[in-house]
């Protein structure tokens, strides 16, 4: 039962990724792209955790944590670039 | 799965090569970044693909692990290419600030100070 649920969730988030991709490519604003990439990061985190459940290992949580961290930093950096040009000022 | 990785390597390489053949340093940087992804996957795959078996030893068994050596090589390659990219970015920025354009080609008759107006 769990296996099916995991597969379902993976499918949902995977599908989500494709939708994010569409938004990144299509835009039209930078904000859309950054937003879509940020969402993509969140979906990937979910997928990582799901993958961990599927394999019964907690090996991938560090990866998920790190992805969360760098995802945030890059989102802020992209935004700052548009907002202020200089990301560290 | 092999075909997935091989075609990913191929696409990344093709994209990277196309971009390093562009005329502006920035495109070349992007191209080298793509090539770096490609080569990382390439080296990684040289040990053969394994799924679901990370190279962390539990007990003394050694069967069925992902080949650790290519992984270590890729790690080294990632770090080195990071250092290289950083220098490249800096050098191209420097060249841009000195020349007023970020063309990769050098033209004998180019005059930096009357260069293009794209220097903001």
């Amino acid at each position: 039962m769990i296996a099916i649920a995991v597969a379902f969730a993976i499918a949902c988030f995977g599908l989500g990724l494709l939708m994010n991709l569409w938004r990144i490519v299509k835009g039209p604003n930078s904000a859309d792209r950054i937003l879509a990439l940020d969402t993509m990061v969140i979906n990937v985190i979910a997928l990582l955790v799901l993958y961990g459940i599927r394999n019964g290992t907690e090996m991938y949580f560090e990866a998920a944590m790190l992805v969360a961290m760098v995802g945030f930093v890059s989102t802020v950096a992209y935004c700052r670039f548009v907002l202020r040009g200089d990301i560290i000022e | 799965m092999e075909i997935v990785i091989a075609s990913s390597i191929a696409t990344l390489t093709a994209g990277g090569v196309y971009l390093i053949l562009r005329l502006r340093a920035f495109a070349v940087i992007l191209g080298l970044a793509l090539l770096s992804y490609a080569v990382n996957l390439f080296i990684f795959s040289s040990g053969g693909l394994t799924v679901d078996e990370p190279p962390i030893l539990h007990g003394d068994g050694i069967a069925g692990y992902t080949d650790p050596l290519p992984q270590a090589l890729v790690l080294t390659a990632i770090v080195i290419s990071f250092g290289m990219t950083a220098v490249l970015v800096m050098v191209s920025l420097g060249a841009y600030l000195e020349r007023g354009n970020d063309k990769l080609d050098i033209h004998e008759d180019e005059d930096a100070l009357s260069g293009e107006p794209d220097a903001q």
Partner: protein
Amino acid sequence: MNWIIAPVLLPALLAPLIGYVMRHDITLARIASVAGTLLLAGIATGLLISASSGETEVYFLGDWAAPFGIVLVLDRLSAMMVFLTAVLAVLVVIHAVATGWDNKGRHFHALFQFQLMGICGAFLTGDAFNLFVFFEVLLIASYGLMIHSGGKERLQAGLQYVVMNLAGSTLFLFALGTLYASVGTLNIADLAVRVAEIPPEEAGLVRVAAMLLMVVFAIKAALFPLQFWLPASYANAPAPVAALFAIMTKVGAYAIIRIHTVVFGPDMPALDGMIGDWLFPAAIVTIALGGIGVLGARRLMPLAGFSVVGSMGTLMVAVAVFTPEATTAALYYLVHSTLAAAALFLVADLVITRRGTDNLQAMPVTVQNGLFSALFFGAAIAVAGMPPLSGFLGKLLILDTIRQPDLIVWAWVAVLTGSLLTIVGFARAGSMLFWKSTAEPVPDLPEGTVPPPAARAMEVMPALTALLLLGLLAVLAGPTTNYLEATSVQLFERSDYIGAVLGTGEEG
């Protein structure tokens, strides 16, 4: 401790100290850097003497057995290359200090030491991937040195240099991946063993790996069609750096000599002499391009750069034959052309500094025209391969050792014609710089401008020493060639190398 690691470790420990502790004190940095380089030369001499016993010494890093850990291998070849590097480094560092080049930007000495570390590491390593790592060390240090002190031309040339080499490094990784995938090891000796076992009908992958590696090394060795980057890079590098770069092209040549003899030698069934078949024509064209470039150059630094291209072609013609005799000749010419190129760049620096431009045009002479013309004449003789300096002997050796009937005419015509073009090119350049300039009226200096200072003895000394070394290399050609002959015999006797690395490698 065993001293094999010392040429890597000494600069590796010194460089951070210079770069971080002494970065605000140029005097201290200079003393440390010069002292370190001298010490390196001393160590290199010791290693050379040690290697001349003919025994291949292996250093098992981390005490791991080969082929699992990384090994350093000291044989005659690596000892010679390290020694050559150290000698060159001493000349260059003194020149850089005496002319004040080192103080025109930041971190010269730290980068210089790292550069030495990379070069020595590349020469000593017995591991294909570690060779890549040290290639990268020496390359990234060279990027820093190349753009040392900045400036528009230097940065744009530096950008090209970096891009080209990054592309090359990427290819290096592709090649190593292919190599590992086809034979499953990285240790050079182990590679040799395993490649020898591969039958031709299964050799596709390993052949590709060998070829890609050749291309990678050919970039460094500036072999056609991968020589395009060199002239502009060398021409725009700070002159002492360009002089140091004389050894960088040799790193490429060394790698081909090492890898494509020990691992992919022509007698390997899988390779079937493929490498030489491609290398030889490439070398021939390289000679031609070098000669044509020397004749066609409008500026002194590119002229010197093209002469390096030509000399690499000459060197690689001998390498491409892959016989012990030809390799002996190649090694002699390698030593010669390294010092000759260094001498040329150092002299060019002294001249350009005083002329204020490297355009080959008549300008009023400034100071010490006689001295500089004599130095230039010496350097030109060296680079063109004229007697009495060692280049002539090197060329004779190369021509004499190529005995394959299908190669001989090509090699002779290329080498001799290349020499002629180089001679004519240098004669034109020198005549313009030093002779025609004497006919130019000396203008009255505007108020307040100081004429360029005369060169002090310390500034001239490195260039002069390089020329003297070339003379010495000619005089001592016999003993030198004895060493080199034993070197190439050792190189081609790959069972020694393999035995030393794999045979006695049991972990203690």
